[in-house]
């Protein structure tokens, strides 16, 4: 038996042992990290209330055009943030599309699933519209509504439509940029009238926010469904043996 230090071939038993030691070390370090962070968190909670943005944010809600403080933060105080967030979603989808055409869809669903889909999808779209509207004064808003639309797309693709019920490529591109486009145009339009970028005048704020949120809902829904499709939309070629199922 040679000294393993000088062995030319790695000894699998020894490698496994070192692997286990590393994992153990990692576990100890991470446990320390967790304990430290929890201690800091507990100390911070016990330190009592420091001045924070909540009071300021809640006090100005009547001027934001919406009654839901979270929507006020998202679409008014931190509108830039939300614009960039839509841009991130768009960038992620462009990344997905740049990787090539979408993989083949699933086989067409049987009559039971197809029947359920034709019930659930319109329901999701109606629920999405409700979510969008309710976001003005209660939990809800563009992202929740967009998530419901995206879920509708996922269901349609699972039921056998390779394009998840989305329109053609040109229309998809317009819908995808709609959120960023409307958001930016509203901001630039406000600058034209002397207000700052995305600084809504209180009288118009409600309608501008609703406009932006409606566009954002469509863009988010289409982006999520298109991300689930997982590639650039392909025109159904004559070589494609699968008939493209149209969602009801």
């Amino acid at each position: 038996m040679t000294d393993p230090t000088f062995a030319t071939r790695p000894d699998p038993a020894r490698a496994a042992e070192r692997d286990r030691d590393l994992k153990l070390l990692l576990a100890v370090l991470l446990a320390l990290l967790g304990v430290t962070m929890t201690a800091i968190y507990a100390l911070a909670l016990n330190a009592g209330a420091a001045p924070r943005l909540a009071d300021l944010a809640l006090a100005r809600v009547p001027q934001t055009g919406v009654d839901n403080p979270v929507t006020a933060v998202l679409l008014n105080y931190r509108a830039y943030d939300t614009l960039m967030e839509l841009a991130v979603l768009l960038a992620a989808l462009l990344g997905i599309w740049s990787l090539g055409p979408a993989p083949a869809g699933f086989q067409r669903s049987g009559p039971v699933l197809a029947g359920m889909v034709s019930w659930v999808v319109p329901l999701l779209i109606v629920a999405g519209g409700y979510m969008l509207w309710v976001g003005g004064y209660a939990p809800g808003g563009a992202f929740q509504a967009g998530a419901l639309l995206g879920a509708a797309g996922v269901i349609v693709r699972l039921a056998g439509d390779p394009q998840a019920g989305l329109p053609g490529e040109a229309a998809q591109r317009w819908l995808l940029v709609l959120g960023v486009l409307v958001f930016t145009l509203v901001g630039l339009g406000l600058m034209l009238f002397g207000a700052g970028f995305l600084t809504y005048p209180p009288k118009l704020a409600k309608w501008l926010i609703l406009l932006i949120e409606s566009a954002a809902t469509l863009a988010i829904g289409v982006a999520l469904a298109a991300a689930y499709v997982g590639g650039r939309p392909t025109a159904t070629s004559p070589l494609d043996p699968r008939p493209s199922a149209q969602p009801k």
Partner: protein
Amino acid sequence: MTAQLLYGGAGLMLFVLGIWSFLVHEPLLRKVIALNITGAGVFHVLIAVAYRGDAAPPDPVPHALVLTGIVVAVSATALALILGARLQDSDDDA
């Protein structure tokens, strides 16, 4: 206070467990799931921090940050999953 500590503490635990799983497991899918768990832990902490007692409404700013964070996490996850799938396709071709 106790509920806030438990909720935030659970978030920190998820954060640490996510990092552990991300570092230890080799398959890409597990790493993506682990990162999502890490992110969920961060969201937990932010939501716990937003609590201001039963009398006052919660701080809307961390709530909005979490909402933004969820969308960014979903976008990044979708991109990572497709990248991983393509990587596997090219491995299969090789």
